[in-house]
């Protein structure tokens, strides 16, 4: 790349979002120790999340895709501190106030969680079967002393209406609901304290397609109405493409590519992104899979290959890729990729 070609520092800057960033993840790491023997000696680390920096603008959706074991779920959990990150920073900017989440004590964190909520994949195990809808959705309101008694009931009813559930269901237990309805309950609970950011971890993956469409539409409507930002973690590329403003692709703990959704899908710059997209079977019999079949499987994050982690499966790999780890760097306007040959390769995206 020419030295005199001015490149914005980050994707956010290029996309003109630097001003209203709501969540900023910087250098986030989560290393799980591998212990061995009676003395539980640490013999190595699984680098589940390895130096990830991303940010989300107010009211926008950042999609995070990757295959199982790539670290996307661990990243989401580190952001809400459901698990403690090993290193790095997670900052939120709410009402002109910056908060470093990794430095909050447990009490402060609980208090701060009103701004940052999470919706999970499995609507069957994420709701307590012994509690009624009123208890489940009302719990955050009670914990944060926002409402109680009659007022609580009114507020929960409002929330149920927002997510499209019948308010007569208030006193029912989760088992009486279908998967889609349970997911609505989970969303109502997440919305209870007017959060600024919701982490959606495979939030629609377990649902039937017709119900999945209902929940995707609901998430979009809520975003428009309340200006919520989403970190949308999913393995389904069609869903991510549909809902996201920007997309980051993870492979073995690292972000390998990051761009606006349209740019990423039409003009991928990392061979892994290209392979991932080509593997999605399109619902059109006239366009049979001509996928770039990736040999082998995702690398083991406890024992990653040398150089670029993707090189053993990459059809463009050269000697340099075996030796030198590529950094995530700006490769085009608002476009970051971690590939030595990002500029030279002519990769194919998915187009309509």
């Amino acid at each position, binding site marked *: 790349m020419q030295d005199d070609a001015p490149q914005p520092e980050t994707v956010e800057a290029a996309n003109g979002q630097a001003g209203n960033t709501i969540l900023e993840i910087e250098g986030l790491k989560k290393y799980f120790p591998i212990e061995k023997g009676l003395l539980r000696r640490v013999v190595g680390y699984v680098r589940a999340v390895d130096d990830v920096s991303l940010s989300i603008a107010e009211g926008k959706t950042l999609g995070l895709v990757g295959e199982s074991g790539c670290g996307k779920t661990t990243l989401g959990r580190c952001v809400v501190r459901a698990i403690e990150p090993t290193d790095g920073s997670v900052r939120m900017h709410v009402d002109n106030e910056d908060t470093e989440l990794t430095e909050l004590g447990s009490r402060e964190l609980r208090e701060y969680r009103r701004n940052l909520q999470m919706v999970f994949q499995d609507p069957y195990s994420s709701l307590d079967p012994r509690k009624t809808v009123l208890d489940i959705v009302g719990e955050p309101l009670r914990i944060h002393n926002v409402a109680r008694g009659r007022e609580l009931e009114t507020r929960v009813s409002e929330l149920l209406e927002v997510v499209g559930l019948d308010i007569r269901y208030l006193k029912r237990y989760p088992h009486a609901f279908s998967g889609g309805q349970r997911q609505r309950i989970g969303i109502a609970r997440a919305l209870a304290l007017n959060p600024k950011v919701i982490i959606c971890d495979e939030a629609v993956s377990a649902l039937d397609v017709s119900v999945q469409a209902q929940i995707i539409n609901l998430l979009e409507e809520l975003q428009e109405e309340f200006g919520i930002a989403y970190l949308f973690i999913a393995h389904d590329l069609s869903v991510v493409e549909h809902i996201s403003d920007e997309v980051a692709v993870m492979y073995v703990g690292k972000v390998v590519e990051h761009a606006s959704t349209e740019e990423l899908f039409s003009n991928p710059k990392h061979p892994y992104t290209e392979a991932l997209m080509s593997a999605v079977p399109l619902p*059109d019999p006239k366009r049979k899979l001509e*996928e770039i079949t990736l040999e082998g499987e995702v690398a083991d994050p406890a024992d990653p290959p040398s150089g670029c982690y993707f090189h053993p499966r990459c059809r463009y790999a050269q000697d340099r890729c075996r030796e030198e780890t590529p950094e995530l760097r700006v490769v085009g306007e608002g476009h970051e990729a971690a590939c030595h040959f990002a500029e030279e390769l002519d990769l194919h995206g998915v187009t309509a």
Partner: protein
Amino acid sequence: MTEEQATVAAPESTAPTDEDVILELNDVRTYFELEEGTLKAVDGVSFNIRRNETLGIVGESGCGKSVTGQSILRIVPKPGDTQGNIWLRRNGETVDLASLHPSGREIRDVRGRDIAMIFQEPMTAFSPVHSVGNQIMEAILVHENVPKQAARERAIEVLSQVGIPEAERRVDALPHELSGGMRQRAMIAMALVLRPKLLIADEPTTALDVTIQAQILRLMQDLQKEMGMSIMFITHNLGVIANMADQMVVMYLGRVVEQGSVEAIFGEPQHPYTQALMQSIPRIGLTRGERLTSIAGTVPVPLNPPAECGFSSRCPKFIPGRCDADVPKMIETSPGHHVRCVLYE
């Protein structure tokens, strides 16, 4: 045959005469008698599968697609009971699988040898305490009278055929020692070792990552060409159906609502349910910034279902007095394209 006898048997209940049809289902009904009532999981399903063809069965959870697969192999869990005809062409003659005893010798001989099945979760097919190789050998030894060593060699051969590296070593691995993708391959190996004529694949790639899914789909296509078998591919994923199937069947609430070639159905879906299903999936490059068309409500449970179109409670084109008057008939709207909807009557 006298004329009298000929009129007794309705034309649709005779065994298929088309040599190319290897399996034909005729009015198959699998009901579960429960305390709460009769659960009609499969309610009058008819279709056939031709030689070397892939038939996709698509539908959402509870539509009866998996129970249809289980009904064919007579492995429906209790208290399910299967009625109707399931004709299998076998050694030049036709057997009605629905008439066999579900644990009798004949159906056990069909399983594995004529029809094999693979599942979403390979651990349902494998025992966790025996090596993959021993389980594949077991499948061979049950059906064929060959020495153990020969069976072991066949097991190694089939494992390498499905793309498992170092098959000589992996043959002794326990199922949990293999990765998800490798386990799926091993299950396919076990299913195909006896070279069945029909493979029933029930959501075999649903739990896999997309790049691994692509590998498994490609493998199934290659093996189909190589071995000349038919595949019945059960899935909820329209993308997978479009890529794998020649013919497809759309099921809703235990019934077939539309069937035809994938080109015909994706090109011009006719049943309001099929249309809604096609519009409810996000499509890369086409639906961003737009609302998806969702189907209101959820799939009902087919417990004591009334005699009406199963989709009537959610259908945007519902016509009172017609859709809820009776179960609509299957209409052929163009050659080979059938739809069960009053709009086409």
